[in-house]
């Protein structure tokens, strides 16, 4: 999928961003970051085909797109299972296949809202799980997630990380937006910052480091356990409010050694993910597979 000199404005206002050029490959996980109003959701709308770019072109959009909004309003009296069955049928599944996929996804997300309860009675987290499920009823070739970590519980975070990894692993393109201030697992292989209008790479050490395989490890500190060894402590990701466990992103090659160090320090392992690509935003490089001019204003 290719974005060439894409710019977007609303009405007669200034360009929200301009000259956005990106060449996105299948299997890539790309994140769009930036401050409020920088155009993250707008870029995702352009990728989904919901908006026509004011300038530039977008080509090579996959046919099967899954869209997960930042906020799923769920005002309907329709139940979650009925809604998902309808969405499955709209995507071309038979009723039985749609119901089967619905049940499997709701179970995978540990959906607790009652599949037959009206959607308007769902909590924010459960409504967000319905939003995620509808995008995955048919495995999408382009999965678009608008600030996906918002509102999900711990299980949802873990499952979502796994889904993003799986989706990219089978050759689909995953595009997501994220606030760098909002904690969440780092799953992207490429990050485009709309404020700075440039592509960030995970490591200053060059392109080879862009694809260093990494795993997410979640650790719990039992009573009496000592502090984490320094090698682990510096890899702890920012915690979500109320999170009692520590999530770490570690290179896959160091996984066993660091897990052993954590266990020896008395910590308990809660979760270890499959390999993802380490693109921690703490490091960056120059423009690589994409580039853009400075925003023309309006952010």
């Amino acid at each position, binding site marked *: 999928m290719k974005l060439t000199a894409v710019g977007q404005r*609303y009405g007669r206002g200034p360009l929200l961003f301009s000259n956005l050029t990106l060449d996105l490959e299948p299997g890539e996980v790309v994140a769009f970051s930036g401050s409020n109003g920088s155009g993250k959701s707008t870029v995702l709308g352009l990728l*989904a085909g*919901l908006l*026509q770019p004011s300038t530039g072109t977008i080509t090579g959009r996959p046919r099967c*797109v899954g*869209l997960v*909004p930042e906020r799923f309003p769920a005002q309907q009296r329709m139940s979650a299972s009925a809604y998902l069955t*309808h969405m499955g049928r709209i*995507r071309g599944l038979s009723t039985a296949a749609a119901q089967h996929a619905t049940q499997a996804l709701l179970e995978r997300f540990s959906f607790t809202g009652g599949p037959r309860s009206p959607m308007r009675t769902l909590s924010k987290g459960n409504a967000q799980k319905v939003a995620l499920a*509808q995008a995955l009823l048919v495995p999408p070739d382009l999965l678009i997630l608008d600030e996906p970590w918002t509102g999900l519980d711990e299980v949802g975070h873990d499952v979502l990380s796994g889904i993003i990894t799986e989706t990219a692993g089978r050759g689909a393109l995953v595009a997501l937006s994220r606030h760098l201030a909002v904690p969440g697992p780092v799953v992207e292989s490429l990050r485009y910052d709309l404020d700075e209008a440039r592509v960030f790479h995970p490591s200053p050490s060059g392109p080879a480091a862009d694809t260093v395989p990494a795993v997410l490890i979640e650790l719990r500190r039992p009573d009496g356990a000592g502090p984490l060894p320094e090698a682990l402590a510096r890899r702890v990701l920012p915690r979500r409010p109320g999170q009692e466990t520590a999530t770490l992103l570690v290179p896959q090659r160091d996984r066993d050694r660091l897990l052993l160090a954590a266990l020896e320090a008395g910590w308990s392992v809660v979760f270890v993910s499959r390999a993802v690509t380490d693109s921690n935003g703490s490091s960056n490089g120059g423009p690589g597979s994409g580039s853009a001019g400075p925003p023309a204003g309006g952010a």
Partner: protein
Amino acid sequence: MIALYRYVAAGVLHRQLYLPPVLLFAVVVAVGSRGDGGPLLPLYALWVGAMLPCSVWLTVAVLATEDAVQERITRVNARRMWFPLVAGALVALTFDVVMAGAAVFFPLLVGVRPAGPADLMVGFLAQMAAAGTGVVVGLFCARQVILRPGYALLLAAVAVLALLLVRWIPPVNPLIRLLAGGDPASAVIGPVLLADASVAALLIAALPIARRLQRISG
């Protein structure tokens, strides 16, 4: 498209936004169906006049069933961005068919009137011409095209009044005058069929235009 139609229809039935325009039309039909035994076609002229604003309202209500965010999801899942708009128009037309069908027979239930199949056919087809016109107006007044409800209401009111009152704007005003003119059904069936064909063509032309405007408004 069938799956999308079923989803939109289910959403409309759940949210019951169809009730106000359907009830308004039912009240007009109930009040207008006096048991005076008079001819049917002038009565059907009143139904045609009532059908237009009710169809506009119904179309706008059907297209407002989904939240804007959910609607974007549906558009992406449908893969063709204009399918939800078509499904909404078809659901609105389905309600119109039921309303027009009930309104054709209701006068016969409350009083004995001289009526033949041609009268009933003309009454139904004339209402459907007004209904189709209402769907076209509703498409352009829907939230998907005009984001501000105040502007949408103003445009809908102006369009409905113009279509009802301005003699040279087809098809509703000419149809009302035709049915109220006292001619037999056999004499008016031709123009009524022509009006239906014109409205069908107008509706088919309006859908991509409304879709284009929807795309611009996001």
